[in-house]
């Protein structure tokens, strides 16, 4: 451990350089540009190297944060990435999309008086440095166990399970329904926030470690769970994501030009429709775009719309600024890029032209009433407050539900009343022997890192099961 240095809280947090808003709002390149080595060392030197680090307790995958930051401070970037990879095989992704401000950084001692250490930025730096310089730091594989694991879904939960179990010596096959691995990291999160090349690079490392990734496999359709067991898999992890778009269920919602955020973002991200016609998949290029909802997905959609040439892109949200579920950083980026926010507004119906294309929405003004089940004040429509809002594209980003395609195909799998899989929060065990689940198909829409945390717990439990050879319940 590095020697404890005098407290240097006077060094301000090193700001990560970004593309200028007026430039980036018209391109799909990544917004934050990353730390240089000098910046990383300087930021790392702010860390107090706490003996009992509160930040680690905030990390769903238990990264030894002070240790890796200590290595960065010492300029030993190889050791830094090794330290991270002990606990997290997707650091370049997590460094970009984890909500550090509510997990590790919020617990940083420095944050009490000033700004916390930029843990996420440093994680990103270490991962990018390793990738660019071809440094491999994954812990060595343990000796083969002869056990085979099937992982259904290649999003953050599935990839974590795959990484953990391959390292423990099991054979792992990941089944992905789409034609590219990565799940929400690839179809959902835009290029300007998480370049796909980075996802594929981290997936490629798993592949190199021996994880077999089979795309175009719709488990439940192309192959069933029973067949996977028959084919010799000893344990199965289900991490298929939530995957069912919610709509507003108001009149006119099937007009052309109204689509789910899933569709809009999948076209843009997975299918690369922003490069149409070089890529064949089209995407509507709205000039006046309304995005319904105010979570991270809504920010992604609005920022995509601006980049696709919208004159105006608006977040339309029924509650007020302080209830917005999106990360502060995402809201900030969206505002910088000229996204407008229309709070306390909810569409009542969509308006269309003769050809069935959306031309606007009739909206209601809302006010906040008593707190609801979520603890947030319930939005209540103000009677007679109807007004029209013009738009030629509406992206519905009001959350998702549980996709039944896989779960319906599995007899006796216990689901909760919303259709999500019932799984033990500590182990990820489902009601079926040899079957685990984790991520959004268990919890409903959450974050990448929570899905990874669930994957970690499931992998530990699966390893125990596979090496003990019996169900431990």
């Amino acid at each position, binding site marked *: 451990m590095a020697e404890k240095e005098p407290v240097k809280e006077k060094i301000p947090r090193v700001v990560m350089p970004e593309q200028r808003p007026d430039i980036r709002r018209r391109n799909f390149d990544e917004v934050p540009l990353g730390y240089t080595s000098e910046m990383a060392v300087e930021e790392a030197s702010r860390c107090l190297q706490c003996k009992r680090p509160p930040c680690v307790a905030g990390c769903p995958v238990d990264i030894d944060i002070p240790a890796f930051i200590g290595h960065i401070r010492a300029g030993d970037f190889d050791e830094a990435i090794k330290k991270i990879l002990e606990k997290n095989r997707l650091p370049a992704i997590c460094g970009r999309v984890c909500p550090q401000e509510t997990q590790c950084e919020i617990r940083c001692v420095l944050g009490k008086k000033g700004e916390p250490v930029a843990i996420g930025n440093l994680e990103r730096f270490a991962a990018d440095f390793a990738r660019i310089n071809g440094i491999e730091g994954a812990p060595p594989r343990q000796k083969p166990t002869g056990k085979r694991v099937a992982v259904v879904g290649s999003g953050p939960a599935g990839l974590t399970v795959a990484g953990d179990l391959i390292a423990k010596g099991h054979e792992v096959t990941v089944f992905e329904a789409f034609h590219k691995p990565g799940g929400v990291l690839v179809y959902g999160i835009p290029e300007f926030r998480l370049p796909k090349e980075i996802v594929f690079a981290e997936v490629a490392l798993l592949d190199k470690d021996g994880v077999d990734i089979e795309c175009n496999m719709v488990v439940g*359709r192309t192959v069933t769970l029973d067949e996977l067991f028959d084919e010799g898999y000893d344990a199965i992890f289900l991490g298929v994501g939530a995957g069912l778009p919610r709509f507003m269920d108001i009149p006119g919602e*099937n007009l052309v030009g109204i689509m789910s955020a*899933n569709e809009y973002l*999948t076209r843009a991200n997975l299918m690369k429709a922003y490069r*149409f016609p070089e890529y*064949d998949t089209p995407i509507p290029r709205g000039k006046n775009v309304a995005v319904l909802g105010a979570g991270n997905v809504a920010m992604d959609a609005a920022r995509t719309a601006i980049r696709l040439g919208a004159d105006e892109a608006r977040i339309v949200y029924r509650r007020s600024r302080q209830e917005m579920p999106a990360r502060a950083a995402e809201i900030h980026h969206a505002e910088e890029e000229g996204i407008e926010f229309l709070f306390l507004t909810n569409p009542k119906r969509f308006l269309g032209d003769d050809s069935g294309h959306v031309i606007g929405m009739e909206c209601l003004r809302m006010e906040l009433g008593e707190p609801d089940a979520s603890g947030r004040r319930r939005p209540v429509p103000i009677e007679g407050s109807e007004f029209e809002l013009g738009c030629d594209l509406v992206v519905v980003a009001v959350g998702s539900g549980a996709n039944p395609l896989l779960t319906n195909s599995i007899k006796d799998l216990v689901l909760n009343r919303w259709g999500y899989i019932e799984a033990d929060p500590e182990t990820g065990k489902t009601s079926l022997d040899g079957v685990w689940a984790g991520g959004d198909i268990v919890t409903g829409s959450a974050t990448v890192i929570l899905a990874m945390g669930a994957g970690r717990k499931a992998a530990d439990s699966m390893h125990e099961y596979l090496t003990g050879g019996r169900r431990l319940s």
Partner: protein
Amino acid sequence: MFEIVRREEMAKGTVILNEIEAPRIARKAEPGQFVILKANETGERIPLTMADTDPERGTITVIYMVVGRSTALFRELRVGEGYQDMIGPLGRSAHLERVGTVVCVGGGTGVAVLYPITRGLKQLGNRVISIIGARTKDLLILDDEMKAISDELHVCTDDGSYGHHGFVTDVLKTVLEEEVVELAVAVGPVLMMKFVSEITRPYNIKTLVSLNPIMIDGTGMCGGCRVSVGGENKFACIDGPEFDGHKVDFDQLMQRLQAYRQEEIQSLEAHRCKLEP
């Protein structure tokens, strides 16, 4: 890669048949289900309802009309080449039961989708009256195949170059006047399915149609394929593609199918030089 093992040109090269190696899909697929195909790295995901499957050979067959950029790209693929990506079987299988007399109506390449459904209905012991049509004789497909599995086959062409001069709906009206029909199945252009459903409605004949709206993933994730059925939103990919024709909002479906009309033209133009030497 999903290799093409047999390729045929039909209807003067405007319609292509591909038999594709996909053992897992072939083992599972049932009449009425579809696959999603993507030709190459930059390609679009295109849903196509299967025309046939051969579990023993481990193949599935699709028949499609060359209408835009993606199908033009598909047409270029030869035997031994293949599709970069394919998933399936998707959607619910067609509702097949023994009811007595059924009328199977197909238009254009819809006949390809109708074929396995018709065969299934025939195998269950129904009396099958089939009515198929095309704009002109040269564009007609699978008339011999349909004849072999139908008790009665009526062929129509819009221009009168073969069979009945007129639309499948004309023949359908005549058949319904003469026969007691328990079930109708219609697959073809949306307008045809709409009119078939309107004709059978007064007779109270259950009418099933197979829809092919715009979609991306085919697994219920994007919601692009939503169709209004009896006032309720359904996803064609997981709730369909077969629906009760008396409940489908065909007008809305037609509008939604036109969503990318401009882009389709643009895309085809952008690639025309590569496709048509």
